[in-house]
């Protein structure tokens, strides 16, 4: 059970006023808010531990290194990876994807095939397009249905002996659709293709078991699950990560350096050049602790109630069109009202203290598919309330009245 009032008291920002009104924060899919438990860890790090890791003999450095490596193990346990060194700490989902894309630029041949889906975030499209330009490989796209789900029959037909890699988001950021990644992974493996799952939108709502999924690569960002911005993780099966060349050169990622030849460090350090966001990584661990204390089952159940309540209420508004009607979706509602431009609706909601996202949500191909300039997207978190949804519905109603 979620005690939402108790939870809300953990988030200082939720008592902020915006444009003279109590903030209603419904842009959780863009970034989530940060609880005191995580903020305190960042303050504590800079107040007590700050030093560089993995290289100092002194006490501070040892303690900071230990805290950093404990965080890596927390992340490993949370996602059930087999080994801590299969967790590469990154600046976020985008960096994780680019690291893999860059690594495969030497491993692909012309006419190899890569598969992505029609509902990817730009950060899971552009790096692969760049990879194709470099290697001469082809990018194939799994089409989408009108409900905003993947056409799995078409996926089966796209797979063939030339398919090397498949990239799919676990959950679509623009539509909230939860994709059938078990089926995707199994089918791809049956074809000897590797799979990378973009978990940026899934991880705030679902706790993936990476070993059970048998996924090859999985990426996510801490800031979507109550952690700080600019931190994330890339999971890769050790035997696959070992095949990839380092991503960036620098300190920390080497074993020995001479001007003739440098030998690289082992996993995970091979991919972690330079001083990382140490406080951020430790806070990422604290964010996972925080969410696990509440419990992902309780979170999913409560958010689903918010989603159903908001969907039912929105549908009573004249001209309402919701995009993304999959049975299995996270607490995200993308919509338009009549011919009202999402920017107009979002501007009025902002005046009412209600934060939503408007535009193409970094997923322009989805907007082109539905032939719309964009949508208004409301995304809920376990710290949101039914009363906030009522205010939001009243706001949409009022804006629609002004704009039509």
């Amino acid at each position, binding site marked *: 059970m979620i005690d939402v009032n108790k939870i809300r008291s953990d988030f200082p920002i939720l008592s902020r006023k915006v444009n003279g009104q109590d903030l209603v924060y419904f842009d959780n899919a863009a970034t989530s808010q940060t609880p005191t438990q995580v903020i305190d860890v960042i303050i504590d790090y800079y107040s007590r531990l700050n030093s560089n890791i993995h290289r100092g003999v002194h006490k501070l450095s040892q303690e900071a290194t230990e805290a950093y490596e404990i965080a890596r193990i927390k992340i490993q346990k949370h996602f059930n990876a087999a080994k801590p060194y299969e967790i590469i700490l990154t600046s976020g989902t985008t960096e994780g994807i680019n690291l893999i894309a860059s690594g495969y630029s030497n491993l692909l041949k012309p006419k190899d095939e890569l598969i992505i889906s029609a509902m990817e975030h730009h950060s899971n499209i552009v790096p692969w397009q760049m990879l194709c330009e470099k290697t001469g490989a082809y990018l194939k796209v799994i089409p989408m249905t009108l409900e905003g789900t993947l056409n799995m029959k078409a996926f089966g037909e796209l797979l063939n002996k030339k398919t090397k890699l498949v990239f799919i988001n676990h959950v679509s950021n623009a539509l909230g659709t939860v994709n059938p990644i078990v089926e995707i992974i199994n089918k791809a493996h049956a074809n000897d293709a590797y799979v990378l799952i973009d978990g940026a939108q899934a991880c705030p709502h679902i706790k993936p078991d990476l070993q059970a999924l048998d996924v090859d690569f999985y990426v996510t960002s801490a800031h979507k699950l109550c952690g700080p911005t600019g931190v994330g993780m890339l999971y890769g099966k050790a035997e696959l990560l070992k095949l990839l060349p380092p991503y960036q050169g620098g300190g920390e990622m080497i074993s020995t350096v001479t001007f003739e030849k440098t030998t690289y460090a082992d996993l995970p350090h091979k991919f972690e050049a330079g001083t990382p966001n140490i406080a951020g990584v430790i806070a990422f661990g604290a964010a996972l602790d925080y969410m696990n204390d509440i419990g992902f089952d309780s979170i999913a159940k409560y958010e689903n109630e918010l989603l159903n309540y908001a969907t039912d209420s929105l549908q009573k508004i004249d001209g309402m069109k919701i995009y993304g009607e999959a049975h299995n979706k996270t607490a995200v509602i993308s919509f338009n009202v009549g011919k009202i431009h999402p920017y107009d609706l979002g501007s009025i909601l902002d005046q009412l203290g209600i934060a939503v996202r408007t535009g193409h949500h970094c997923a322009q191909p989805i907007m082109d598919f539905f032939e719309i300039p964009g949508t208004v997207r409301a995304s809920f978190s376990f710290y949101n309330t039914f009363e906030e949804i009522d205010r939001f519905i009243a706001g949409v109603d009022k804006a629609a009245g002004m*704009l039509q």
Partner: protein
Amino acid sequence: MKSLKNFHFFEDWMQRYEYMIELGKSLPLIDEEYKTDNHIIKGCQSKVWIHAALEKEQVNFTADSDAIITKGIIAILIRVFSNQRPKAILEANTEFIDKIGLKEHLSPTRANGLASMIKQIKMYAVAFQTQLN
């Protein structure tokens, strides 16, 4: 430059927005033939097209947008800048945007759109000024 006296009398944001929406409806619309990528302004969340023509040494602007509040913003700009000599447009300062409280109501992404609109208007003026010289 023409003033926009009415504007800062609106204390209430709703009145201000309603006025902007009204202004948007009065915008001198761009000819459909000019609604092309050549006339589109980058940096706006909504699409904005602006076209200008020189008549009797004065610049006339027409525009359109797919968002009504954006249309209101362009309508304000066009009220200020239309029927002016290119030189006057070039010399005009844009403090009025702060004064009428437009800027504070525009988030950075939207403010960028506004800045791009003004830049485009001034570019037209530069082009016409060279033509007149």
